[in-house]
């Protein structure tokens, strides 16, 4: 399987600019979240998406440590040690909030009640496998948190990441070399260069920034072939 299926088919190409910044990417994701959705934003980059959700979109944020309708980060006197998000950052409460315990919170996630979950990733495979919890380095202390629960729980699991590592290796790969977080769980991948939908034939490019879909597909598949031949 190539990573990208039918690159030419219907992708919107923004060629008048370069790749997105992470903040611009957050805005793109925020734009795509349907009004009234229940959403979990993973620790790290996905947290930024909240800043781009219009107040009137009625998007309800879930934090897996036991709350619905979480508000923005707390500042100054708002800081309450009993009120944090999953990243243990002090946050606020919006009207209509509800608190619940951890088993109920993860039942909500695992039971498929959340509309969207956005996660960071080390790698995503062409079939939607996710690797985001462990580098696999022998000296790394394993720590999974809620990542595996989030990966298989929401109706739509989106990944937010740069498309390439700092050294230029694609993070969208034929199959993940890092330990998996979940199998065939990612529905959409948002990156600085392009957004992708998982399909039975591989990733389909929806939108690009700074490259044509064909060029990106060639770069991803070329890198994959090179990696393959090195093995």
């Amino acid at each position: 399987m190539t990573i990208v299926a039918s690159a030419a088919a219907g992708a919107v190409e923004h060629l008048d600019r370069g790749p997105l910044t992470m903040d611009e990417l957050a805005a793109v994701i925020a734009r795509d979240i349907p009004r009234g959705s229940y959403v979990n934003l993973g620790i790290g980059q996905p947290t930024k998406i909240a800043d781009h959700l219009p107040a009137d979109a009625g998007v309800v944020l879930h934090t897996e440590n036991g709350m619905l309708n979480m508000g923005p980060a707390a500042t100054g006197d708002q800081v309450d040690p009993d009120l944090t998000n999953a990243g243990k950052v002090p946050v606020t409460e919006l009207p209509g909030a509800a608190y619940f315990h951890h088993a109920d919170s993860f039942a909500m996630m695992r039971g498929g009640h959340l509309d969207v979950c956005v996660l960071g990733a080390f790698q995503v495979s062409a079939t939607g496998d996710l690797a985001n919890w462990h580098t696999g380095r022998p000296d790394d202390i394993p720590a999974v948190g809620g990542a595996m629960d989030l990966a298989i729980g929401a109706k739509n699991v989106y990944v937010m990441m740069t498309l390439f590592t700092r050294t230029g290796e694609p993070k969208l790969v034929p199959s993940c070399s890092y330990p998996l977080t979940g199998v065939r769980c990612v529905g959409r991948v948002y990156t600085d260069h392009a957004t992708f939908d998982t399909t039975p034939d591989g990733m389909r490019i929806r939108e690009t920034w700074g490259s044509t879909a064909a060029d990106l597909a060639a770069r991803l598949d070329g890198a994959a072939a090179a990696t393959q031949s090195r093995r």
Partner: protein
Amino acid sequence: MTALLHDTCDQAVAGIQDGSTVLVGGFGFAGMPFDLIDALIRQGAKDLTIVSNNAGNGEVGLAALLKAGRVRKVVCSFPRQADSYVFDELYRAGRIALEVVPQGNLAERMRAAGAGIGAFFCPTAVGTPLAEGKEARTIDGRDYVLEYPIKGDYALVSAHRADPMGNLVYRKTARNFGPVMATAATTTIVQVNEVVALGELDPEAVVTPSIYVDRIVRVQARNYTVQGAR
């Protein structure tokens, strides 16, 4: 048995034996039973298995218990944090065992222990290293692995208010693992910031019913953000 109010945390943790499995509430600092942990350090029980979401921050709470050398094994979802150096050092030195459990499985396995469920098929972690060696099954086209209950000899829980029977309410996201752990332990020990008169808690809003609570002790609320919330 009706819950017993204790005067001090030292009384409340009395009798915890070496080798016990102790469920410790809290998510980071929120809901962590600092005072009970401090008392447990003074009490001296060792070779403990600690079940908690994290493996301690800085040198307080769980980290202090680890530093005191009382913990044989940690069962948690996320031991690795910016300031979890006490755990890190023990782990790298091979002086502490670690079982990493996905956060939802940690909660659900304790819920199963409290609810008399023998085991359950769970979709979390299927196809990942954390499912290796576990019994797998496909049900209605979805893949699951079999997960077993986690039962505690003791639970140490921090709640907001109790009544004299032991009914508990929590505060905001400090609720987290407390209500589940209270159901999963043989003996549940709770520190609260306030004990109200019988009848003052709204029966519709009780989160942990008194039946799950064995010992209660009142402690001073502390502002643990000053120690750096992570």
